[in-house]
């Protein structure tokens, strides 16, 4: 019998992922045995799993585990916290939202947790193989979640569009990975960087490597909805159940950025001259197109969809800054963006037994439920970049980084489009406070966990806005 060396397991390195998977399995078992109709059991198990996983992220020791397929450094721990926070808030919002439709099934929470596991693996991946698997875990779960309302035509169509275009992007990504593998002979990021720095040329030729990188950029560009690859965004964001939209807009996007950071900023910083220009154009286009299209929308989810595209543009700007400054700004903005985006989609989810689709339907919300209107205004102001909110510092760091790296023009475009965005964000506030609803609605009741989520998100926005140093300290530790 062949004896072979048992690999070093490094279970501690994947503790958060393990805890979440365990929670998912427990929910499944609970569903099977107890018949958890209202989703209370699933909710508490998810929350427990997420909190434990969050605590476990503080055990990051910077080591590479599982034959250096994963890394457990401060960057991945910080990203894990972004994902877990997004998932936590979304979970809290989901139960009351789903219960409204009588669909609070355990599977929803299971898939949500597994999607989070996918994001975390993506954030910690040091190898194309693990990155790809994490991405697919995330995507497959989200495809299903987007189509979770089986009777709903919009949800079905959203799932279909998301799936087909996502699979298309996966095809590009895998083809790109094939060529990068061919050029460097490995799928491991550290080994790739080593091969490049050792001066051995890419195997057939340099263009092979660049071709592969371009395809990977296209494939991941889909995930983070940069502009030529953003066509799915409005449809999917509108059709998917709103908490799922929140997760797609935050966690999934953050995971995409995490993979991009690992590949482009950490593994291939040397070829900046090639991919830098691509990011410049992508960021520019994304900011302009996202904000312009957001201006003309009448449906609220569609408007936030384009606003999320625009935010992707601001985030992409970070890639042009010198690597560590860029990564720090990116991380900070990801935190801020997560709070405010989950916040707005949370409000949209909970603002009524039936969702309000049009912006004009938000007229008079301040009377029905002053709390909802207030937190919504806070999130909107933060998205617009008002000082005192998280959005302000987030944008400030991003633009400052771009200016410092000499991309004045791009920063200027960013600032101009931000000013443009004031119009459509403030319009919602105007509707909520200054317009009367055409047909009077009675006061809204908010379920407990939904309220908690919104309070937490609002607190996050305010704390980041007033004391950015709290989070900046842990970001500084990344490098």
């Amino acid at each position, binding site marked *: 019998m062949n004896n072979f060396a048992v690999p070093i397991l490094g279970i501690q390195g994947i503790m958060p992922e393990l805890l979440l998977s365990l929670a998912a399995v427990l929910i499944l078992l609970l569903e099977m045995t107890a018949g958890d109709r209202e989703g209370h059991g699933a909710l508490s198990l998810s929350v427990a799993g997420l909190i434990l996983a969050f605590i476990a992220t503080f055990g990051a020791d910077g080591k590479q585990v599982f034959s250096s397929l994963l890394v457990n450094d401060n960057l991945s721990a910080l990203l894990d916290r972004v994902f877990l926070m997004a998932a936590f808030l979304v979970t809290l919002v989901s139960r009351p939202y789903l219960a409204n439709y009588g669909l609070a099934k355990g599977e929803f929470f299971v898939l949500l947790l597994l999607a989070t596991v996918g994001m975390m693996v993506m954030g910690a991946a040091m190898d*194309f*193989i693990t990155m*790809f*698997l994490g991405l*697919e875990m995330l995507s*497959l779960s989200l*495809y*299903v979640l987007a*189509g979770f309302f*089986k*009777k709903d*035509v*919009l949800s*079905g*169509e*959203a*799932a*279909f*569009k998301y*799936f*087909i275009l996502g*699979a*298309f992007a*996966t*095809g*590009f990504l*895998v*083809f790109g*990975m*094939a*060529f990068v*593998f*061919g050029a460097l*002979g*490995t*799928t*491991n990021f550290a080994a790739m960087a080593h091969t490049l720095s050792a001066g051995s040329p890419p*195997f*057939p030729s340099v263009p092979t490597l660049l071709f592969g990188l371009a395809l990977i950029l296209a494939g991941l560009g889909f995930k983070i909805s940069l502009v030529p690859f953003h*066509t*799915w965004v*409005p*449809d999917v964001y*509108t*059709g998917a159940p709103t908490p799922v939209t929140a997760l797609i807009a935050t966690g999934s996007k953050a995971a995409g950025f995490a993979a991009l950071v690992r590949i482009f900023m950490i593994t291939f910083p040397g070829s900046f001259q090639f991919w830098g220009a691509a990011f410049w154009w992508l960021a520019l286009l994304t900011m302009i197109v996202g904000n312009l299209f957001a201006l003309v929308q009448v449906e609220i989810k569609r408007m936030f969809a384009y606003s999320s595209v625009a935010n992707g543009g601001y985030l992409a700007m970070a890639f042009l800054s010198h690597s560590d400054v860029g990564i720090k700004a990116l991380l900070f903005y990801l935190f801020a963006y997560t709070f405010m985006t989950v916040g707005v989609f949370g409000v949209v989810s909970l603002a009524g037994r039936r969702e309000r689709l049009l912006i004009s339907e938000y007229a008079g919300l301040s009377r029905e439920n002053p709390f909802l209107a207030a937190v919504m205004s806070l999130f909107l102001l933060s998205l617009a970049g008002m000082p005192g909110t998280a959005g302000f510092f987030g944008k400030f760091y991003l633009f400052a980084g771009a200016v410092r790296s000499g991309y004045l023009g791009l920063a200027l475009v960013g600032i101009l489009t931000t000013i443009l965005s004031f119009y459509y964000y403030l319009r919602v506030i105007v509707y909520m406070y200054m317009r009367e609803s055409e047909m009077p609605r009675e006061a809204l009741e908010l379920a407990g966990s939904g309220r908690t989520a919104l309070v937490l998100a609002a607190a996050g926005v305010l704390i980041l806005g007033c004391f950015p140093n709290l989070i900046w300290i842990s970001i500084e530790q990344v490098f």
Partner: protein
Amino acid sequence: MITLSHYLFLSMILFALGVTGLMVRRNAIILLMSVELMLNAANLAVVAFARFRPAPASADNGMVLVFMVMAVAAAEVAIGLAILLNLYRQRRTVNADELNVLKG
């Protein structure tokens, strides 16, 4: 003599056919198959690269990648067909052009 570029060229053709299929066909199941074609093309490229690299030490690496892509493709198809089945129950069609309640 059969060289690396032969394989890469074939892989490129298959990939291009997959992309073409995604663009010109409207039947959702054919779209799904086109994606599979793309993944197959990528797999072929990886295996060819692994075989022709000067140092074949990395071959296992490429093969594991291919194997994972296969496994994921199976999962992806299962999910995709479930989505399609659901869509068909709602609309009695799998023509991508008729899915236009949401206007991109």
